[in-house]
């Protein structure tokens, strides 16, 4: 698909939309695989919130870009280098600690971003941001509780959470490498960084998880459509039907 976004606002929003889509897909993978049924429902709820959020964001983007394409076109017909999600949310469901840590790191960031977007001059976006904040608040509550349970529960759960955090933290640096588009669309990027740092440090300390120093990896930025190897597999599964039957209506 030939993707050409004309406005900076779209280029910014598609990062949020793609992040929601890929994270929603990772959570959907957990269906019928959670530690117990109630958690299956909780994770599905978060997944549904994320897909709903993605759809609303894609609709806003399509409006801004004068409807050259639909939300489904954006989800099902773009390739690996045309997706703009955080690498963090592509990371796999190695075990439940990975699921929780990935979600928590994302939710703290998400809360800070949508808090600023709720003041946007784009009233549609501000309205959506306010709705998203309620959803993220619940997800954040849920995952924070699990960070405590896993960090402070048993030696095994602490070890697994430590391993998950060690791996996922490699994908944090790019989140806070703000570019001109971010600085234009968000009121105060540095405030988001410091809010995230502050809460994460507090939570990790409280649940007995070490935040190890990470050598910056020579990784290219998600904002330029660079990913981990996971994106290819994620998309080939997600996009299979529309790509296999391009003239069918789904």
């Amino acid at each position, binding site marked *: 698909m030939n993707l050409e976004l004309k406005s900076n606002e779209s280029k910014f929003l598609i990062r949020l939309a793609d992040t929601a889509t890929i994270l929603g897909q990772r959570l959907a993978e957990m269906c019928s695989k959670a530690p*117990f049924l*109630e958690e299956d*429902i*909780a994770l599905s*709820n978060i997944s549904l919130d994320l897909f709903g959020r993605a759809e609303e964001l894609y609709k806003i983007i399509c409006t801004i870009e004068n409807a050259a394409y639909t939300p489904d076109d954006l989800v099902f017909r773009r390739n690996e280098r045309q997706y703009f999600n955080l690498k963090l949310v592509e990371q796999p469901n190695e075990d439940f600690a990975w699921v929780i840590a990935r979600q928590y790191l994302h939710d703290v960031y998400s809360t800070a971003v949508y808090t600023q977007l709720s003041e946007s001059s784009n009233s549609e976006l501000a309205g959506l941001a306010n709705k998203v904040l309620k959803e993220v608040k619940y997800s954040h*509550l*849920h995952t924070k*509780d699990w960070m405590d*349970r896993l960090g402070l529960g048993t030696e095994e759960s602490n070890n697994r959470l430590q391993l998950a955090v060690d791996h996922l933290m490699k994908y944090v640096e790019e989140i806070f490498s703000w570019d001109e588009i971010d600085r234009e669309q968000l009121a105060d990027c540095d405030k988001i960084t410091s809010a995230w740092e502050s809460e994460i440090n507090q939570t990790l300390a409280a649940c007995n998880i070490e935040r190890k120093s990470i050598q910056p990896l020579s990784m290219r930025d998600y904002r330029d459509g660079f990913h981990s190897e996971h994106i290819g597999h994620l998309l080939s599964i997600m996009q299979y039907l529309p790509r296999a039957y391009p003239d069918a209506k789904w």
Partner: protein
Amino acid sequence: MESGVKVWEVFVQKKSGLPFKHVGSCHGYDKKMAIQNARDLYTRRGEGRELWVVESNAIVSVPLDEADAFFDPGEDKIYRHATFYKIPEGVNHL
């Protein structure tokens, strides 16, 4: 066999002004989990504005063999019901 999970009874208040209603039970290891699980299970379709969870073994109920002692004597005290009383014709607001 694993242990630690508790059963909780769930009560939902649909709208303000209405009483809480027992809707069933859910599982949870701790209070926070119990109330979140109850919300996900019983209010997915906007069925409530308020929610209570109570550990099932905190509920006190009347044992079967005491049921008649507890509840039957209530049935023959008909003077507790308004219909027992005769009001003279033409007298209002009673």
